[in-house]
């Protein structure tokens, strides 16, 4: 077994174990952390495939931004995990049987014999100075410019939808108006009233 295969199997084993842990651990915070591990190990696998740019993007975007945000949300929300997990053990045997049948069927239908190296040649290895990022950029802005622009439109729709569905104007909410605060003069707040001194009645 070559060094590369050993590395691959090590990362693959961690990946599978971590993704199983995501759906089995009791604590949602732990589940999110396992998901981070899953993303990280899959990034390592992509690195082995010489897809450096995608691997780094996965770590930066998913691990760095999305998952941290997700963790934040999970910590903020008080999710009662016991209610969600009700019946987990009861449905487990059926679930395992169904999953096994699906796995076996899919291995028969789309097993490795249809996608082996005899169907597709192994991609050529590149030298260390080969820039993945440059190649991706080149193809993304030329051949794939049309799908790329549609993807941009999809993201724009997502932004519009998210704002339209969540933005609420609450007139009764009290908030500070900094400009108004700074512009306030003494006379706006304090009024000096002259009063006649009153004699104490005896």
């Amino acid at each position: 077994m070559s060094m590369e295969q050993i590395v691959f199997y090590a990362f693959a084993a961690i990946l599978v174990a971590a993704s199983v842990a995501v759906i089995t651990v009791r604590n949602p915070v732990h589940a999110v952390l396992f998901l981070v591990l899953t993303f990280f190990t899959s990034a390592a696998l992509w690195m082995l495939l010489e897809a450096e740019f995608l691997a780094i993007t996965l770590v930066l975007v998913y691990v760095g931004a999305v998952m941290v945000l997700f963790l934040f949300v999970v910590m903020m929300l008080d999710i009662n995990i016991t209610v969600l997990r009700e019946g987990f053990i009861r449905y487990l045997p059926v679930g395992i049987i169904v999953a096994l049948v699906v796995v076996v069927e899919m291995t028969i239908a789309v097993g490795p014999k249809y996608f082996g190296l005899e169907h597709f040649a192994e991609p050529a290895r590149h030298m260390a100075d080969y820039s993945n990022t440059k190649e991706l950029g080149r193809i993304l802005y030329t051949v794939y410019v049309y799908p790329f622009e549609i993807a941009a439109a999809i993201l724009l729709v997502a932004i519009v939808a998210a704002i339209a569905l969540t933005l609420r104007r609450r007139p009764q909410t009290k908030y500070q108006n900094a400009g108004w605060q700074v512009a306030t003069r003494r006379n706006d707040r304090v009024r000096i009233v002259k009063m006649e001194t009153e004699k104490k009645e005896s």
Partner: protein
Amino acid sequence: MSNMNFEMPNFALALPEIFVLCMACVVLLADLFVGERNRVVTYLMSQATLVGAAILTVGLHTGETQITFGGSFISDTMGDVLKVFIYLVTAVVFLYSREYLRVRQLFTGEYFVLGLFGVLGMMVMVSAHSFLTIYLGLELLSLSLYAMVALQRDSIGATEAAMKYFVLGSLASGMLLYGMSMFYGVTGSLDITEVSTYLAQSHDKNIVLAFGVVFVVVGLAFKLGAVPFHMWVPDVYHGAPTSVTLYIGTAPKIAAFAMLMRLLVEGLGDLHMQWQGMLIMLAIASMAAGNIIAIAQSNIKRMLAYSTIAHVGFLLLGILPGTENGYSSSMFYILVYALMGLGGFGMVMLLSRAGFEADRLEDFKGLNQRSPWFAFIMLILMISMAGIPVSVGFWAKLAVLQALIRADMTWLAVVAVLFSVIGAYYYLRIVKLMYFDKTEDNSPIQPALDMRVAMSANGLAVFALGIYPSALTALCVAALK
């Protein structure tokens, strides 16, 4: 450096798409600056966008098939015809929705912006020439639709409908994508020409392809709402505001037809034997469930939802013989259906007013005594949907049945006729309610002038097409040449 021989795309072919995208962004920004009272500006700009896109599409039409953008975009007659119908239908949807939305405090810029982005998604689907663009167009459309359903935030029904639609729709997208990935795995390409060339040349149809076809068909059936993947249709149609139901139920069906044509016929045409059987089952189940369950509905939006399912069954019947004749009859069917659906849901909106949704069957009681003209238009629409002779719905059904008989599938044509007869019951029940039942509700029906004109035109168009269907038939035949 394989892509150094990159060919500059012919941007002119995609001008309508570029125009709609730019205008949607302009409308989005302009809407921020017009006040609550001048919201009608947003509406007019959206309508102008659709008109402009129609002018561009017709003006750029050459009649030749051209492929550009590295093989991901195709411009052909079928695409142009379908696009023009999509603009037309969407423009009528916007027109019908205006008053309905205003009365319910839903007259916001987002409805029109999301509607325009949905139109863009449909256009991308219609002129897609790669699995990737089909998928992206579909996602752009679906995402806009999910958001539009949820726009009425205070309505529990709408929120529930949006949630169901979103979860099931994402699942369906996943299925479709998985099927596409199988084709990519075998053929090594996402381009429709390359996939179909590979399929034509390879003699052993291996099991992976069959596996991929199953997932693609399931994904498509979900999106079309064919039985047994129809569960979301009645809930979404019922829960969404009627203006959104109108949008979902009409123009996207035309885009779905285009998606079927591009994916199954142009891409996977050589696997015809594999998908024909699946479509037969989907079509029979859809016609059966759609027509029979519709009888039990007391809500007209739900009833029309089940009727949509039945019509989708008919649409599939036209595609499955795999003949040019069948495709053109299917196209005719879906265009006619879009027109009838517009009228049907439009009538529900026309009869409703502030705080009152005319979406129960009882609300149509005695419509003749309240407004003979609109009762007459509803009569035309219902007769046409039922497919009673000398209505356009009849010609559409007849064309599909003819295509089936020519392909030696007479038994399937017989089944289709039987279910159509069952379906006629619930359409005619509305006619009975309108003409023979009395109503206590004598509140006048006073729609705005544009709504009145559009609804009359819609009804008369269905009527005229019933008498003179050959122009539209010829157009459909020419589009698929």
